[in-house]
Each structure stands twice: as structure tokens, then as C-alpha cells.
């Protein structure tokens, strides 16, 4: 009953026109910022930290957490409509969302993303509220070897992500991993491959690389095949998915929400990895794996429910222990400090109104997001009917300002254009770009934890640490199994009648 009492306090904080207005503002800003490539959740929250300084602590944090949760959804809108993930984790959404738009089913893509995000967000918040403290304790027990194994498991998803030539996907992921080694070595502090350039000490920033690989490369491909006539998407269907379609993917959403929350809890993992892993798992569990990558509603749902639920997960270590679990958490920690608060166990005791105010606000924000999203989708979908001759220049302008906004650096803009050219080359010759993003996202996690584990306990740790060993085995088989199946398939053309040949 303690919980009920706490929530009475929590809801008393957010009931009132001012807090509710702040939640609505936060959700609107979050959705739009999320949809804007370059304003990732952490940047969107960071940009409003100075803004929230003048508010009361509870209102400031309500605003920032509402933005956090809504921006994770917002990323899916541009991913589905114009293949430009607004947030890194929406790169996974784009893999199935954009094919839906190309088939004239943008409404289904957007609707699935919205509902999956809402449910995912709610599941994440629920788990956060109920089990924050014990879960945070368990996550801390994970050793560097375990983290390394988890990251390798993430890398192994490349095998099921690839269409066509698996070697090409692996070259793409290795390219991403190698790119990530540029910059200051996280363990020894030595500068690697910086060639004396200041801007390379932190390595390439993920967001500009992502925008270049996804958005700019698509525009370049369109330029190459430009026929001189601005074509307008002939059929747009803003019909939402039917109830039946939702019922079909209910387990996918639920499973992905739980996976997303759990992965979100690990400090340093985060929304993108959550989306990749749950996409991979959903594809394995699916009755129609062949549809993945060609506009599968399950694929969209898996990615979106996982990245939204990871928000609740990421808040677990922050609120329970005061340890930031994601980049956005680190910004929120600063916001707490700005108001002379320290998140952690003491906050539950000393300022329950803030903790439960945040919990209540997250629940309300999810509901607000659903309604605003339903209304907004009808507007957003109009983007698709903009003539291509206007759309592509504007996408390029968004890409440029978005990559500039991350750090306020022109170097990032140059990097974005450079990755655009790389992405165009990749697309042209059938190399997928999503694995490059996966490599950039996971590269540091693999390397740091691998070297930490070896420094602590030597190479044998990967065998001695039972959990790490098991995860590594799973990672190995999850990598090899699809390859084996594809190979066997290749050997027995007689069975090529079934759908798997299309993967």
C-alpha cells in the first residue's frame, strides 16, 4: 500500500494545469525533436536543461523526462516516412518502416510505431516503478566480461539482419567497428588514428554519421536515378493498422518491451542496442521472418517497443543508484544537480514528491503521446506527398543543421557529407548501411569491456565467468545458425520453393 500512498503524492504533483501543460509541451517538443535528425534524445533534453533552470525542481524534471520518452518515439516518424532515422535507435525502425511507405502503407508504419512505442514506454515505466532497486543491483553485478559478451551478442545480430550477401554485411559492420576505434583510446588514453586533428580526439560522432549513411545517401541515390520529373508518391494510405493486425503482433510488442527494458537497465547499452537485439529476436520468433526488411509490421513494432521501453530501463540505475545508464541519463543527472538534488536512494526518502512525480508524469506522458501521435500522424503523413524536387533539398538542409546541432561543430557537418558519399557507395553495390551503425554503436562497448576484463583477470576470464561464457555461446550460435541455414539452403535448391529463398 506504500506504493499507493507514494502515487497519491506523485499524482498530486502533476495534477494541475501547469504541470499538465508542461507534460504536453514536453511531449510535443520531444516528438518533434525526435523526428528531427540530429536532435537525439540526449541532445533534445540537454538543449532544454538551461530552459528548465528557472522552474521548480519537480516541474523541470517532469519536463525533461517527458521529452526523453517522447523523443524516443519521435525518431520513428522520419524513419518511416523518409528513411531518415531521427534518433539512432530508429535506424532499426527504418529497415521495415520505410519499405511500408514505399508500398504506400505509411499509415500502417506510423500507427504501428506509435502504438508499439506507447506500450513499450508503459511497460518500461511499470518495470521501473515496481522493480527499480533490485534490478539496479543485479545489473551492477555484471562484470566487464559479461558486458563484452552482451556486446558481442549484439554484433551477432548482423547475421540475421543481412539480406543477400552475408559477407557484405560483415564488411559493413567491421567498417563501423574500425571507424569507432578512431579517437582517444578509452583505456590507455593514447590518441589513435587522429593524424593530429583536434576534432578526431573524440572520434566520429554517431549522429552525423547516421544521418549521412541513411538520409544523405538516399538523396544521392535519388539524384543518380533522377528522371527530371518530380514524381509524387501516387498512393498514400493513411489507414491505421487494423485491430486484427495489432492482435497479431501483441506478443512481439510485449516481448520486445521486456527485452528493451532489460537492455536499457545496463549502463552503457541503451536504446539502439535494445532495438537491434529485439528486432533480431522477433525475426527468429516470427512466423513470417521473410517479411522482415520488406515492410514487416512486426519489425517496426519490435524496434519501436524496444527503444521506447529502454527509457524506463535506463532510468532504473539513475533513480535507484544515482548512476547514469545512458547519455540522456547523464544529462538528467546534471539537471538534478542544477537543482541541488542528487538522484539515488536518498532521493526516494528525502524528495518522494520528485521521484513519484516523475513516475506519474511518465505514465501521463505516454498517454498524451498516444493521443498527440494519433493526431500528428495525419499531419506528418502529408510529408510524403510533398514533391520530390522540394523534399530532397529540404532533407539535405535538415541533415546539415541536424549534424551541426549535435556539437555545434562544422567538422561534424563535413563528416556527415562524407558518410553520405560512403552510404551511397554502399547502397549502390548492395552493402547494407545499418550494420555500419551497429558497429559504431557497439565498437566501444566491445573494446572497453574486453580490455577491462583482460586487465582484471586475464584472457581466461571469458571461460571462467560462467555468465559471460554462456552469453558468448549463445552469441556464437545465433551468428552461425542463420549462416548455416542459408548455406544448407544454397546446397539444396530443391527446397527453394519456400519463402526463405527471398531473405
Amino acid at each position, binding site marked *: 500500500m506504500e506504493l499507493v500512498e507514494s502515487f497519491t503524492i506523485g499524482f498530486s504533483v502533476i495534477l494541475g494545469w501547469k504541470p499538465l501543460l508542461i507534460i504536453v509541451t514536453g511531449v510535443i517538443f520531444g516528438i518533434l525533436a525526435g523526428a528531427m535528425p540530429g536532435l537525439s534524445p*540526449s*541532445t533534445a*533534453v*540537454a*538543449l532544454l*536543461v*538551461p530552459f528548465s*533552470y528557472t522552474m521548480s525542481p519537480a516541474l523541470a524534471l517532469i519536463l525533461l523526462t517527458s521529452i526523453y520518452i517522447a523523443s524516443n518515439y519521435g525518431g520513428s516518424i522520419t524513419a518511416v516516412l523518409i528513411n531518415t532515422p531521427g534518433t539512432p535507435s530508429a535506424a532499426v525502425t527504418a529497415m521495415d518502416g520505410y519499405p511500408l511507405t514505399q508500398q504506400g502503407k505509411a499509415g500502417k508504419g506510423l500507427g504501428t510505431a506509435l502504438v508499439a512505442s506507447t506500450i513499450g514506454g508503459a511497460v518500461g515505466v511499470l518495470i521501473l516503478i515496481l522493480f527499480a532497486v533490485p534490478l539496479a543491483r543485479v545489473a*551492477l*553485478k*555484471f*562484470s*566487464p566480461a559479461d558486458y563484452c559478451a552482451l556486446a558481442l551478442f549484439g554484433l551477432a545480430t548482423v547475421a540475421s539482419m543481412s539480406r543477400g550477401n552475408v559477407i557484405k554485411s560483415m564488411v559493413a559492420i567491421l567498417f563501423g567497428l574500425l571507424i569507432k576505434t578512431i579517437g*582517444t583510446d*578509452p*583505456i*590507455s*588514453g*593514447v*590518441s589513435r588514428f587522429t593524424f593530429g586533428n*583536434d*576534432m578526431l*580526439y*573524440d572520434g566520429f560522432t554517431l549522429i552525423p554519421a547516421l544521418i549521412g549513411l541513411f538520409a544523405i545517401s538516399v538523396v544521392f541515390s535519388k539524384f543518380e536515378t533522377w528522371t527530371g520529373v518530380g514524381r509524387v508518391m501516387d498512393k498514400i494510405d493513411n489507414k491505421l493498422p487494423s485491430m486484427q493486425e495489432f492482435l497479431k503482433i501483441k506478443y512481439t510488442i510485449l516481448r520486445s518491451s521486456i527485452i528493451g527494458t532489460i537492455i536499457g537497465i545496463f*549502463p*552503457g547499452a541503451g536504446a539502439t542496442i535494445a532495438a537491434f537485439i529485439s528486432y533480431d529476436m522477433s525475426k527468429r520468433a516470427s512466423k513470417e521472418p521473410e517479411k522482415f526488411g520488406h515492410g514487416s509490421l512486426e519489425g517496426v513494432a519490435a524496434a519501436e517497443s524496444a527503444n521506447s521501453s529502454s527509457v524506463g530501463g535506463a532510468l532504473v*540505475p539513475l533513480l535507484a*543508484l*544515482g*548512476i*547514469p545508464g545512458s547519455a540522456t541519463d*547523464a*544529462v*538528467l*543527472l*546534471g*539537471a538534478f*544537480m*542544477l537543482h*541541488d538534488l*542528487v*538522484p*539515488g*536512494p*536518498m*532521493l526516494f526518502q528525502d524528495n518522494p514528491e520528485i521521484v513519484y512525480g516523475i513516475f506519474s508524469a511518465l505514465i501521463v506522458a505516454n498517454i498524451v503521446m498516444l493521443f498527440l501521435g494519433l493526431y500528428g500522424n495525419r499531419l506528418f503523413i502529408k510529408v510524403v506527398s510533398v514533391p520530390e524536387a522540394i523534399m530532397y533539398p529540404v532533407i539535405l538542409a535538415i541533415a546539415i543543421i541536424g549534424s551541426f546541432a549535435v*556539437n*555545434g*561543430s562544422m567538422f561534424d557537418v563535413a563528416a556527415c557529407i562524407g558518410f553520405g558519399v560512403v552510404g551511397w557507395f554502399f547502397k549502390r553495390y548492395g552493402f547494407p548501411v545499418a550494420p555500419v551503425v551497429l558497429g559504431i554503436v557497439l565498437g*566501444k562497448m566491445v573494446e*572497453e569491456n574486453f580490455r*577491462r576484463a583482460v*586487465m*582484471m583477470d586475464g584472457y581466461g576470464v571469458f571461460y571462467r565467468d560462467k555468465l559471460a561464457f554462456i552469453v558468448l555461446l549463445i552469441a556464437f550460435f545465433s551468428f552461425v545458425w542463420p549462416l548455416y541455414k542459408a548455406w544448407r539452403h544454397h546446397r539444396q535448391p530443391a527446397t527453394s520453393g519456400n519463402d526463405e529463398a527471398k531473405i
Partner: protein
Amino acid sequence: MKKGCIALLVALVFVVGSFSTATAKFPTKPIKLIVYTKPGGAIDVFARKFTGIAAKYTDATFVVVNKSGAGGIVAIKHILSEKADGYNFAAVTRSNVGKIVSTGNEINVEDLDWMALMVSDPEAIITSRLLPVNTWEQIVADAKEKDGNQIWVGPAAGGNDHIMAMKTWNAAGIKAKWIPYASGGKAMAALLGGHGVVYVGNPQDVIGRPDLKVAVISSPERLGGDFADVPTFKEVGIEGLDNEILWRGFMAKKGMPEEAKAFYHDLFDKVNNDAEWQEYVQRGGAVPLFDKEEKFLATVKKDQEEFGAALKQIGAIK
């Protein structure tokens, strides 16, 4: 007649001109305070606290501008590229000096005006109450038993805290391993999870985290408040570690006009004596200080040498 008019006008201009220089006011436009992290970083909070309190004493408008990248190098280079008119200054910490050394940058600290060192954060040896080893004596005994395999965690290799750890090992005659994490927060998570025995940081790291405690503090005497029970290095019998600090302060490009200089010195002085400011600083277990110009520069140069020597020792630079 016409000539007289012009003469009068010229005279008037001169009078007005000299009048305005006599009362030359600084500032006449908003001042940019450059911060080397994104909003929400620790130094960003410090800078915003400062501008909030400064508003009590001046009508000047401060705008906090975040120029993140390369651990502060981007921000310092930005300061150096602007005019030395006093309208740009930056929040700095000791780790920026380390970054200048570790990246082998050609930045000359003498080109900068080290305006004021405002806060001195003592380095602290932090342990977890959840582990059996959590006092200084236990750390030393455990280190001797593990013979070089005791694990100390903290942020980036070659940073402040790493160097503090190396100094502590030397002074105490023990051996241990330094396992760096991407940030102090992640290192604290490792300590809480029991993957390391000691975390090196500052007293404010334990605030709000009841499972963590400061085992020893590098300070000439004990701190007050929440840290009154924490022994200093001298008390546990270690010499030469009485004043290892992480300072925070402000700097600008060298050569700003006198009136700007006077404005800042006056302001720093007032803020430093402000009760709210002192409360903010002390709550984090830090000490307000006010070292300016030459004294600050001397600290910076000393730090530069120390980083140079330590980074060579660990092989991060040649």
C-alpha cells in the same frame, strides 16, 4: 560663423568622447561564458550556478555557451580564436590542463589569462560499504595480500584521478591496477558491483549514494559537515598527499582591457564571498578559494609538469 559652429561641434564631440571613456563601462553587451561540456555536465552546472549568483551583483547578462569536444581543447581553442575584449571567458578545470598535455597540443598556457581559481575539490579515496574492504588500513592490507592485483577504478587513464591513484600507491608503498571507465559514474557503478575495491574521485561523488564512503581525503585538515569523520592522509600516516585537488576556475584570452579586468576581479571577489556560493561549494565537500593571475598560472604550470611526467610513466605520451 560656420567655422565657429564646426569648432564647437568638434569640441562637443571631444567632450562627449572623453566623458564616455572616463566612465567607460564594461560590459555593454552580453558576455559569453564558454563551457567545455554539453549542458548538464558537472562543469556546466558549476558555470550556471556562478551566473545565477553573479546576477545578484551585476546587471551584466551572461550567456552560457557549450563548446564541447576533445576534453576542453575545442573550448580553449575557441577562446584563443576570439578577440581579447573580455566578452568571452571560459570555465576550466584541472583536467583541461591534463588534456592539453595528453593530446600533445601546441596551446601555450601563457597565452591565456588565468583569471580566478574558485573552487578546490580535494581528491578522495572512495570505497563501498558493501565490501569487506572499506577503510584505509583494510585497503593497504588487501593490496599487500593481492600483491598488485587489487583493482582501483576511476575515469579515463592519464586523468586527474589516475594520477592521484599512482601517487597514493607510491606514497603508501603498495601496488594495484588501474581500470579506467568512460566516466566517473560508470566507475562508481563498478565499485558498487564489487568489480573493484577503490574508486578515486571527489567527496561530492558519495553524496546521495549511501553505499559509498570516503576512506581518506587529501586535505591538510578534515573537512566539515558530512565529512567530519573522514581522516586525512596525514592522519593515516601518509606524507606528501595533503593537497591533491581538482580545481575549477575561469580563464580568458590574455590581453583584455583594464576595465574588463577590474569588472571580473570585483565580481569573482563578491561571488566568492557570497553565502549561497559558499554553501553550494561546501555541500560538495569542496573549498572555495580565490587564487588569481600569477598564482593561478603557477598552479597550472605545476600541473602541466606533473601530467607530463605521469603520462610518460604510463606510456600515453612519448
